[in-house]
């Protein structure tokens, strides 16, 4: 074609004009810390595993999950999911059902028999883990992955600690517990049961362990002095639940009163109902707002017929008469006696007033500091005695299984550093991907998928699991509700919305800026749904 001069121009010529020189700010991709990850005591990369789950790649999802937590089927049942409280989606509709998806992945893994990542190359170093609760199991797993030999000891007859002896089976079926423990043991762990460690240093020396992780939990139920007659049946919740787990439940009668307001009180009351109690009453000295038990536990218990007696303390338990004193909250929110008394009929009283740790194994070692009944530890969870680490309920932290799992990982890392003669350093956290960083327009409106629950009537006499799992379809849907806060999930928005075609799409989820043409308008940042791009001042 003979084109005329100047008025007719060939394709591609404008690319000689590098409009990038107009720019005063440049967009850059970044990772921000999703609030769920930030809130997870176990340090899970929740957004990361949801990314795989929403693609239906459940094994990849599970493998990402178990990078941090080897017990997803358990945590998917017993974790109180602070991730969901932190979830940005709360401000759109409802939190993503992270816990339900975690359980789904955990259950699929058990069903498919997926193995945890294998042990690392053997280092020849030996570590003693005392206590096989979530902290001990988690530490065992991470230590084996690092290639250290682990001896796991527990004073009980079976592994699992409070997950077995504290959490009732209707919340955590034993087949699930056993399955996830077995998977850790398959990494090659020496186990000693029914073995109580009397002195940590002596045990270490006797076994020639290079390091010790103490995860002994809090197994001693706190008692209060209740004036009681000889015939009054008073048990503490820890022992009660332990006995039930051993399939040797004590006889409590038809009318059971539980004293306390924590999750254990509700576990005890709900267990009592399942053992045949017609009345299960929880007596708590403060009110609903002050009660430490988690809301779900409370709702479940009420649904099962457990009743509450708020603002009450137990004065005495004589015969079948239990006397409570009504309390009133003072200005500081603390309960004060009112001098008003009431009587309740009761066959047994279960005390659920908190637990203490048996720290006799460190009693001889003043360098291991104990404050407020728990062991003081450094950031890497090492105690004052070099090579001896502690975690879980025996250390100052929230006493939840998830915190314990996180401690296990942290301790394993600390031990690994210690054995390598390295200083433990904590990697700096990314900036938080808070709600203001998101553009939620692009997220489809999608209500949360509910987990089905066992019919009420079937909860009366059985320990069948109450909360059921999501179907695959629902789990997939739920995973896809994740907004991927702070991390690119390949939505192509930046690639699409650039008026200057200055974003190059290399592959699905992989983009690069073409700074030759990017004018720095910032639309890509404004329209990135998940806040994974930021503008930074141009180097001039």
């Amino acid at each position, binding site marked *: 074609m003979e084109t005329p001069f*100047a*008025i007719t*121009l*060939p*394709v*591609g*010529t*404008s*690319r*000689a*004009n*590098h*409009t990038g020189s*107009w720019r005063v700010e440049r967009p850059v991709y970044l990772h921000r810390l999703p609030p769920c990850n930030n809130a997870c005591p176990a340090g899970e990369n929740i957004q990361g595993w949801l990314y795989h789950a*929403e*693609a239906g790649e459940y094994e990849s999802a599970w493998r990402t999950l178990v990078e941090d937590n080897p017990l997803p089927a358990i945590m998917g049942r017993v974790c109180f999911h602070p991730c969901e409280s932190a979830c940005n989606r709360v401000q759109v509709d409802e939190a993503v059902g992270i816990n339900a998806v975690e359980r789904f992945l955990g259950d699929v893994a058990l069903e498919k028999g997926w193995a945890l990542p294998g042990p690392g190359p053997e280092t020849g170093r030996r570590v003693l883990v005392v206590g096989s609760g979530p902290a001990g199991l988690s530490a065992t797993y991470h230590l084996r992955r690092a290639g250290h030999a682990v001896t796991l000891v527990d004073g009980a007859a079976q592994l699992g600690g409070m997950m077995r002896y504290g959490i009732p089976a209707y919340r955590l079926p034993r087949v699930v517990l056993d399955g996830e423990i077995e998977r850790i043991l398959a990494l090659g762990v020496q186990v000693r049961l029914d073995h109580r460690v009397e002195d940590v240093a002596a045990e270490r020396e006797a076994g020639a362990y290079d390091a010790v992780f103490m995860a002994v939990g809090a197994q001693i139920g706190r008692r209060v002095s209740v004036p009681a007659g000889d015939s009054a049946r008073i048990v503490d919740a820890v022992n009660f639940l332990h006995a039930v787990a051993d399939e040797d439940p004590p006889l409590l009668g038809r009318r059971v009163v539980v004293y306390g307001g924590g999750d254990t009180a509700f576990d005890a009351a709900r267990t009592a109902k399942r053992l045949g109690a017609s009345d299960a009453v929880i007596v708590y000295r403060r009110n609903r707002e002050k009660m430490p038990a988690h809301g779900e536990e409370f709702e479940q218990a009420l649904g099962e017929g457990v009743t509450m007696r708020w603002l009450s303390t137990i004065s005495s338990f004589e015969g079948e008469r239990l006397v409570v004193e009504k309390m009133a909250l003072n200005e500081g929110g603390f309960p004060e006696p009112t001098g008003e008394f009431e009587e309740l009929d009761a066959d047994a009283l279960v005390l659920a007033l908190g637990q203490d740790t048996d720290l006799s194994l460190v009693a001889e070692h003043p360098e291991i500091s104990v404050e407020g009944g728990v062991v003081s530890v450094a950031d890497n969870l090492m105690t004052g005695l070099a090579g001896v680490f502690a975690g879980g309920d025996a250390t100052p932290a929230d006493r939840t299984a998830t915190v314990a799992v996180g401690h296990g990982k942290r301790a394993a890392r600390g031990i690994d550093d210690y054995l390598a003669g390295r200083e433990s350093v904590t990697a700096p956290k990314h900036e938080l991907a808070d709600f203001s960083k998101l553009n939620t*327009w*692009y*997220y*489809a*409106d*999608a209500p949360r998928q509910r987990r089905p629950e066992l019919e009420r009537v079937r909860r009366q006499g059985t320990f069948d699991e109450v909360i059921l799992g999501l179907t695959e379809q629902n789990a997939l*849907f739920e995973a*896809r*509700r*994740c*907004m*991927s806060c702070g991390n690119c*999930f*390949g*939505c*192509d*928005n930046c*690639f*699409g*919305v650039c*008026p*200057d*075609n*200055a974003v*190059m*799409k290399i592959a*699905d*989820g992989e983009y690069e800026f*073409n700074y*030759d*043409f990017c*004018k*720095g*308008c*910032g*639309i890509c*940042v*404004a*329209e990135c*749904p998940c806040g994974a791009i930021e503008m930074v001042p141009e180097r001039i």
Partner: protein
Amino acid sequence: MTRVPIRFYQVGSFAVGNRLLEDEDRTVQSDPQRTNSIDSGHRACQGCGEALGARYALDAAMRATNGQLAVVNATGCLEVFSTPYPETSWRIAWLHSLFGNAPAVATGVAAALRVKGRDVRVIGQAGDGGTVDIGFGALSGMFERNDDVLFICYDNEGYMNTGVQRSAATPPAARTATTDAVGPEPGNVFGQGKDLPRIAMAHDVGYVATATVADLHDLEAKVERAMSLRGARYLHILVPCPLGWGSASSDTINLARLAAESGIFPVFEAEHGVVTSVTPIRRRVRVEEYLKRQKRYAHLFGTQPRLEVIARLQALADANIARYGLVNDETTNATLED
């Protein structure tokens, strides 16, 4: 028209693409092989909505026609920033003649292609000035003859290329260089202007639709629908202008979204003069949310807000919502709280 909504895929329903979607469910813009009808190196302002809207529409048309497309462009920003000698940004067959004649030139191109027996489709395009004002006669002629042209108006509500003067598409109360924000009735006056989509519908053309750069799936579906039909068709795309509207360059898409979500800019489609579908408002907002982000409305806010003017604008938005039925059961804030 019935459109199968994209299955729920995290953000897939509203974002440009999604790794989880099948290719055919992704937008044209998510395709690394998209035409990029308007290439990098063009001289549009930062955050130009028109550059974006043109690429969105034309890339979609290129896909719909398998690349057999010729485009006629009126004079205006789009033409000026894309073809300063010796550089053109157009990667497609493109012709520019004058400001007011793009519809007629497009008619001629279509006639030539028909007589030559070539199955090449034709799009005419202009800004709002070239459409509702100076090109209006030619466009009306193209409509009534039912010439086989899709005409696209990239509406940025004023003569931006010449320095932001008022057009018949400038909304009431907006400040332009010829409707200054002074006097008892600052900005553009109420009761003027042309509603081109409805005028097009009155011509009984086969397809009329509105769209914004904020809803790409919707826009592309409309282009695809338009290109599946023959005869005169009209697509009116709202393209915010950071320069003329006094908005942040990063806010272009957001403003288009707020225009639609407030009801200020109704998004719908019509066939042969009858509205056949509307794009419902998802999260209804008050007009202030849209207005306050633009300096052309700054005189309505500040220390003594012109509440009565804002109320009149809200009434216009409400009237659109009522006329087209833009609010449905799924709309958040279906009734705005006072």
